[in-house]
């Protein structure tokens, strides 16, 4: 006989509520990268508890590892929906602390953090109570995977949402920076876990958001400014933040903040969240895999970069789960594994040269890049993901370049000229919209700057190549964001129109707008000065033209006319000289009077 109520109500269930409703609170955690890391942990687990709201797919992924999966949610409607859709999953509804499971679970997944484990009903548990409840439910060999939001994460530094927690139905106790009871740092979190009998096995700083984490970087790697992975880390963070914050109004572009953080080894301190893997101090049976840097997407392939001596090893952990084509691009299923030489992010290298106004260095670096594109091409066209590798996707080694894997590849090979134009155009756009220093004129449009960059690389930019490059860029952005054709056309127009006073083409930063306004004012001031100067020059040229005209007439006229014109000119000259003399005498007389 089947259970008459498939949901185990433990007390504190919420009615008229759903944590899956985006109007009620943040989205539930999802994404291939997260699912892969959690599935790895499930190997060897007999029982798994998914605590709090997560995208349903995690339940099937964990069950596929052979574990008995349970979950706990606070909303009765959510619990009933899950129980109906996944009859093999044990669904608890209510407050976490009220679950009675004497043997505990081998793995507890709390990738949504602790905030949504507490119900609005009944007694309220402090963060430490919730942590204790989680650890209490672990079996003697159990592992806890806990996502913990960072109150100093980049999301808080850039947030520009009016009202903030007042707009969220789930924030009856908002996470604030003033809550002494909630671990505010990684060491504090570790202390609390240890106090509850757990040892921390591994920590990841998680980007770009806690609900769709696509980049997981080990804390040691994030802190190490000399790590060979710094270049790839900068690249993947830039791409992840671009996607996460597309069209989002923010105080400041988070990419600019994370660039500095990567460079200073403080990326983990500014991560939106941390994923901590901890197990019982006396547990020995459960292996916790360690990765240096894991990268994925919503449904794209998942891969890792790991340090291999002074080199970098790239290994694919899971192939893409989606398969489609968009705007001449196809989704890459598996970028393959490789061993790369360590190097520097090409964008960083170029920015250093730009900041130092090093024209010789820029000519050499851009020339090398063009040569590399030509090496990649066959019959003048580049196939595969290399065709889409911009300066933010390329690692620049002493001898070569290599691209960070791309989720997309062109269906047809792209002409080498278009590949170069797209890369240089992208760099030019960032020079302008990020207000970067560079050795050229600051009122240039992206198209002008692209032409200058191409010339610096020893190339002549062809307008057709630039148009095709912007088409390709718009296509890739549209594919990433799954935009409809009309939005793609708008995006393309916006990309093609980047001028000195453009604030940004993807993320709407207030600071970037202020910078753009400054550039606009500079340009306006220049225009006013130029108009005034032009007026003056026109007057002057008019006078010169009149004089020449008079001279021509003098030569063309009859003898009488010539004499007459000559006398007129002489009279004028005389009158002018007499006036000048008179003024001088008057001045001298005045000076003499003052001297007396």
């Amino acid at each position, binding site marked *: 006989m089947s259970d008459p109520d498939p949901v185990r109500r433990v007390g504190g269930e919420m009615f008229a509520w759903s944590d899956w409703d985006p109007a009620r609170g943040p989205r539930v955690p999802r994404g291939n990268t997260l699912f892969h890391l959690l599935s790895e942990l499930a190997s060897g687990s007999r029982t798994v508890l998914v605590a709090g709201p997560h995208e349903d797919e995690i339940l099937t992924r964990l069950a596929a590892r052979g574990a008995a999966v349970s979950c706990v949610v606070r909303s009765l409607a959510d619990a009933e929906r899950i129980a109906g859709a996944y009859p093999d999953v044990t669904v608890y509804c209510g407050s976490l602390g009220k679950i009675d499971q004497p043997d505990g679970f081998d793995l507890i997944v709390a990738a949504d953090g602790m905030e949504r484990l507490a119900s609005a009903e009944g007694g309220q548990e402090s963060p430490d109570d919730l942590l204790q409840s989680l650890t209490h439910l672990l079996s003697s060999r159990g592992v806890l995977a806990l996502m913990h939001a960072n109150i100093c994460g980049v999301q808080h530094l850039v947030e520009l949402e009016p009202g903030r927690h007042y707009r969220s139905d789930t924030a009856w106790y908002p996470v604030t920076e003033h809550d002494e009871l909630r671990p505010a740092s990684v060491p504090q979190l570790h202390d609390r876990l240890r106090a509850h009998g757990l040892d921390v096995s591994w920590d990841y700083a998680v980007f770009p958001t806690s609900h769709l984490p696509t980049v997981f970087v080990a804390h040691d790697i994030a802190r190490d400014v000399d790590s060979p992975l710094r270049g790839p880390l900068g690249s993947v963070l830039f791409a992840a933040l671009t996607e996460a914050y597309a069209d989002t109004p923010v105080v400041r572009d988070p990419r600019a903040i994370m660039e500095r953080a990567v460079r200073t080894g403080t990326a983990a301190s500014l991560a939106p969240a941390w994923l901590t893997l901890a197990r019982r101090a006396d547990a020995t049976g459960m292996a916790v895999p360690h990765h240096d840097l894991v990268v994925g997407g919503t449904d794209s392939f998942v891969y890792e970069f790991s340090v291999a001596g002074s080199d970098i090893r790239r290994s694919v952990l899971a192939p893409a789960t989606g398969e489609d084509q968009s705007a001449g691009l196809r989704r890459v299923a598996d970028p393959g594994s490789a061993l790369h030489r360590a190097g520097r992010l090409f964008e960083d290298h170029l920015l250093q040269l730009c900041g130092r*106004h090093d024209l*010789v260095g820029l000519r050499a670096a851009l020339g090398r890049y063009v040569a590399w594109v030509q090496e990649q091409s066959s019959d003048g066209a580049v196939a595969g993901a290399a065709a889409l590798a911009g300066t933010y996707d390329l690692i620049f080694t002493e001898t070569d370049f290599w691209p960070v894997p791309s989720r997309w590849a062109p269906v047809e090979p792209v002409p080498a000229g278009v590949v170069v134009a797209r890369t240089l155009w992208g760099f030019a756009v960032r020079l302008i919209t990020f207000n970067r220093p560079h050795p050229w*004129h*600051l*009122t240039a449009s992206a198209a002008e700057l692209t*032409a200058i960059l191409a*010339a610096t690389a020893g190339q002549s930019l062809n307008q057709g190549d630039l148009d095709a490059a912007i088409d390709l860029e718009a296509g890739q952005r549209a594919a990433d964001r799954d935009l409809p054709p009309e939005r793609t056309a708008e995006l393309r127009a916006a990309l093609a129109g980047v001028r000195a006073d453009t604030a940004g083409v993807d993320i709407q930063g207030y600071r970037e707008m202020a910078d753009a306004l400054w550039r606009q004012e500079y*340009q306006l001031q220049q225009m006013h*000065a130029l108009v005034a*100067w032009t007026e003056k020059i026109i007057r002057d040229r008019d006078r010169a033209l009149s004089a020449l005209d008079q001279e021509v007439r003098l030569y063309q006229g009859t003898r009488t006319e010539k004499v007459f014109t000559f006398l007129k000119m002489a009279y004028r000259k005389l009158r002018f000289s007499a006036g000048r003399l008179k003024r001088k005498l008057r001045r001298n007389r005045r000076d003499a009077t003052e001297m007396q």
Partner: protein
Amino acid sequence: MHHANYYYGHAHLLARYCRLSEPMHPPRILGYYQHGWNIGDSQAAGVPLVFGSKLFVWSEQTRRRAWSQGRRNAIVTGAPFAYLLQMEPEPPDLRREGTLFYPFHGWEGQRVLGDHARMIDEVKSVETGPITACLYWSEYRNRRIRRQYEKAGVRVICHGYRGFWWRDHDRTFLDRQMAELRQHKRVVSNRLSSAIWYGLLAGCDAAVYGDPMQLEDADPLFGGEPRIRRQWSELYGYEVDRSVAYAMAREELGADLLASPEELRLHLGWAESQDGGHV
């Protein structure tokens, strides 16, 4: 934009380098091209600049200085003379002889106060070969000054008139200067100036010595002659370390930073210009 862009035929020379179809009638330069070696913000003192316009400066040091003076749109493109040397490589069978002497000069609106005769005597006592004196056009037209040099047995030349207000530019001024420099072993002056740097870049030995003379109404803002003497002291004296001086000349003239024709066309606003200009 500015008539000073046409001084010494600079715009014409650059148009030639950029391979424009009518180099003797270059289109307007969108900005101000530095027209002489400069210890200030690249432009002559008192030149009214249109705010925010591009300044094309010779060296990175000048660009830094211009930035420090509030000029945000300075682009290093190098000295036109350096482009000329690049276009006209030195002939292999070149024979150099004697010294080319550039007495210090101001411009038409300034007067130089000093003793030419004493200067000539000093140059003659130091230099061993034949001496050529290159006078500024206004001095060259002054018979009294010219005679002073001629009487001393010095060959007197003038490279031409730099032009003013879009008229009468000597478009081959620098060609003539290059040809003269290449005929001489040494280039000397009583003040460090463009000509000394040009001479070094053109393969001459160089030296700066003698009475620097006074410039009437000289602008002391950037330190004037005393500052030049301190900052570029390696160039002063009867004998100068050639390799050191040559490296300095390359830097001051931006000889290692010269733009390609394509780059220069874009910077000067000539990208679309295959037609001629108005000068």
